[in-house]
């Protein structure tokens, strides 16, 4: 029997209270930490993190049989999806948010991808799952999961953003944390079969104009998709980031509608009906239509527009190191293609510097940007502004309000401002 590692409870609790200090932006702990180069270091006193022999340095750790499916370090237990109870009536038909401020690079880990479902997570037995294609086709077909996996596959990285992402911010700054203001998004590499390949297997009739995608869950989620999009780049995916889809992401198979609003990415996909008119189901009439100031409403607002947000620093991730060299980072994306450029402002949009995009730059995928500078410790109004390959520029929130009023809920891609105070705390604000 090998030595069991003893958990250093002191470290856990101090780490936790430190995080709490940062999270609640209470000021005390975070501000104190901001003044030095490390909370535990006092000048001239040797660092016990170096001079003490740590348990992990002395005793053997867990064996290879301890975690057949590995989980994050217990010190990362705060990195979780969170929800906002007042947003919806019931957690069974609700949403939670990706902790963007804890992530880097462009890929969202599977367990942190935000969830939105309309009648809970369907637990589907893949052996009992079927995908049917019917309607205006030469032959209505039924596929098993095994059938689907015999078609030619492709691997694509796409962002999935809920149309309501930032929807709570139309009337003004409301939630403190990019997880809540921008966390209805994830970015995943999908493995799947082109929807076009499946439709061609059934033979699409010339009169086809629309496709209905329908889920197997208890909400029977359904959306109408124009046939041009269905035959263009949509993907019927069964893997995310290399492993099977998570149940909450539509296991065993979901639709990917690149660049378009997340609601159309039907999970637990079980039926595709080809038709000549849209169906006008609940999610494309009562919901996911955009009410305009004149009382009329836009419908079929599918594309997700160019958008970005600074994830660090942000209200949940204050600057704790004091002045000096500072890394600002964030993500940018566009449903119209790849991101061409991201600008960052530290003075509320009066002067802009072009940020450095690092990592893969893929069409309709998240991009990671960095802006490094020497912070002098004075307050900042941080903003980011993305420009996509079509030339669309991320607008200000006021420009959006001027065009759409404050009641359209969806498609808020306005520029976000974080107010960084002299102690490093961050708050969600809007500036003149």
């Amino acid at each position, binding site marked *: 029997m090998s030595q069991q590692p003893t958990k250093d409870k002191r470290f856990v609790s101090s780490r936790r209270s430190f995080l709490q200090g940062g*999270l*609640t932006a209470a000021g005390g702990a975070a501000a104190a930490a901001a003044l030095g180069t490390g909370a535990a270091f006092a000048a001239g006193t040797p660092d016990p993190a170096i001079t003490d022999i740590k348990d992990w340095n002395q005793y053997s750790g867990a064996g290879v049989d301890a975690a057949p499916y590995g989980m994050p370090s217990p010190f990362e237990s705060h990195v979780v999806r969170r929800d906002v109870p*007042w*947003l*919806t009536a019931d957690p069974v*038909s609700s949403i939670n948010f990706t902790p963007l401020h804890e992530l880097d690079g462009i890929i969202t880990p599977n367990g942190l991808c935000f969830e939105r479902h309309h009648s809970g997570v369907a637990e589907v037995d893949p052996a009992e799952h079927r995908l*049917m294609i*019917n309607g205006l086709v*030469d032959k*209505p*077909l*039924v*596929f*098993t999961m095994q*059938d689907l996996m015999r*078609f030619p596959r492709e691997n694509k990285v796409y962002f999935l953003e809920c149309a*309501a992402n930032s*929807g*709570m*911010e139309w009337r*003004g*700054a*409301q*939630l*403190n944390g990019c997880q*809540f203001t921008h966390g209805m998004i994830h970015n995943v590499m999908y493995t799947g079969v082109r929807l076009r*390949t499946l439709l*061609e*297997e059934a033979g699409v009739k010339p009169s086809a104009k629309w496709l*209905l995608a329908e889920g197997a869950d208890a*909400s*029977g989620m359904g959306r109408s998709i124009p046939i041009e999009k269905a035959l263009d780049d949509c993907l019927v995916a069964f893997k995310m980031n290399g492993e099977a889809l998570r149940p909450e992401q539509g296991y065993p198979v979901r639709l990917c509608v690149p660049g378009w609003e997340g609601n159309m990415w039907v999970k637990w996909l*079980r*039926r595709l009906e080809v038709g000549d008119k849209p169906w006008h189901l*609940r999610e494309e*009439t*009562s919901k996911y*239509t955009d009410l305009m100031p004149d*009382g*009329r409403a*836009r*419908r079929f607002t599918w*594309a997700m*527009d160019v958008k970005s947000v600074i994830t660090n620093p942000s209200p949940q991730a204050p600057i704790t190191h004091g002045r000096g060299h500072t890394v600002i980072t964030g993500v940018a994306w566009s449903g119209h293609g790849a991101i061409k450029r991201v600008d960052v402002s530290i003075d509320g*949009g*009066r*002067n*802009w510097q072009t940020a450095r995009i690092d990592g893969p730059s893929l069409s309709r995928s998240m991009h990671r940007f960095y802006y490094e500078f020497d912070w002098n410790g004075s307050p900042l109004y941080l903003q980011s502004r993305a420009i996509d390959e*079509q*030339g*669309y*520029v991320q607008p200000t929130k006021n*420009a*959006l309000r001027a*065009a759409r009023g404050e009641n359209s809920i969806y*498609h808020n891609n306005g520029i976000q401002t974080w*107010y960084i105070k002299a102690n490093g705390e961050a708050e969600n*604000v*809007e*500036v003149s």
Partner: protein
Amino acid sequence: MSKFLKLTASVILFGAIATTGANAQDADAGKKVFRKCAACHAVGKGAKNKVGPELNELIGRVAGSLEDYKYSKAMTAVGEEGLVWNNDTLTEYLTKPRGFIKGTKMAFGGLKKDAEIENVIAYLATYSASAEQAAAEPEEMAEPAETADATSGQAPAGLAADAVIPDHGNYHLGRVALPEEITAWDIDVRPDGAGLPVGKGTVADGGVIYDESCAVCHGVFGEGEGRWPVLSGGFDTLTADRPEKTIGSYWPFASTIFDYVNRAMPFGNARSLSADETYAVTAYLLYLNDIVTDESFELSNETFSDIKLPNEENFYPDDRLEEPNFAKGTEPCMQNCGDRPAEIVMRARVLDVTPDNDEEGGAGGID
């Protein structure tokens, strides 16, 4: 004279029955082709009927004539008409089975290549009387081989070569959906009434169901409990500061009510209402919104098209790209933008990032 008799006659005229000796090479190739058939057909010593009839002495056999095999009516009929299996008739049948004999229960879609057909017929001919070697040929085709691994605990997978390849599409994957299966899943309803099932229900009937199954969330009058969706009222609020988007004030089509109730309601017990009950609940929701005003009003698949919702005309297609902020190629300001330094004009109202019991909530829910 039927087309089958003509074919038979032509065979007699030219004596075109394949013989083993003349087609030895082809028969070997045909043995491989026959793997596509072997899931359903046996041939050779001891061959018995499987899904399809056994194929010994096939050449020269009258179609549909084995007494101990249950043929489709179509196959029996063409036999009675005089169809005899020979090189020509088999060629035509194997090219497109259901094209040649409409109603055959053979699901196989047909062989794509002429050579495959020639070879498989040559192979089958070795098991017909005209072939002297028939008895000497291998027996493994008679019964499926028992190759399952006894230790695996899994059902025998069968030989890969036995898999039936359908003829549809480019990859020949999946199978044709049965009408009953399509009926079971294709429940969507469009604004033009397409997809509505036969049925009917009155406002009064719907009220009983609504009070029992819907009011707990949506309120007795559709006013909504908590943050559950408000279903009624809200007329003339779409330009107000806080619009109330209900069936009556906002939804464009009554078909959406029927479709959604039918597929997803009551919440947590979807698909539990009958068609009549769904018509009744839909009728009641129209009543709660003053779209119909008579409690005895009966909604049915026939009266459905009379219902129009008042806000239908106020929806229009996405025109975001016409907004000024979508102007392409405008280089945004980089330096000294704006007249004076930025000032805070709004601050986040919710100060705790883990929202607690804020029953009032913030503005702009996303249900």
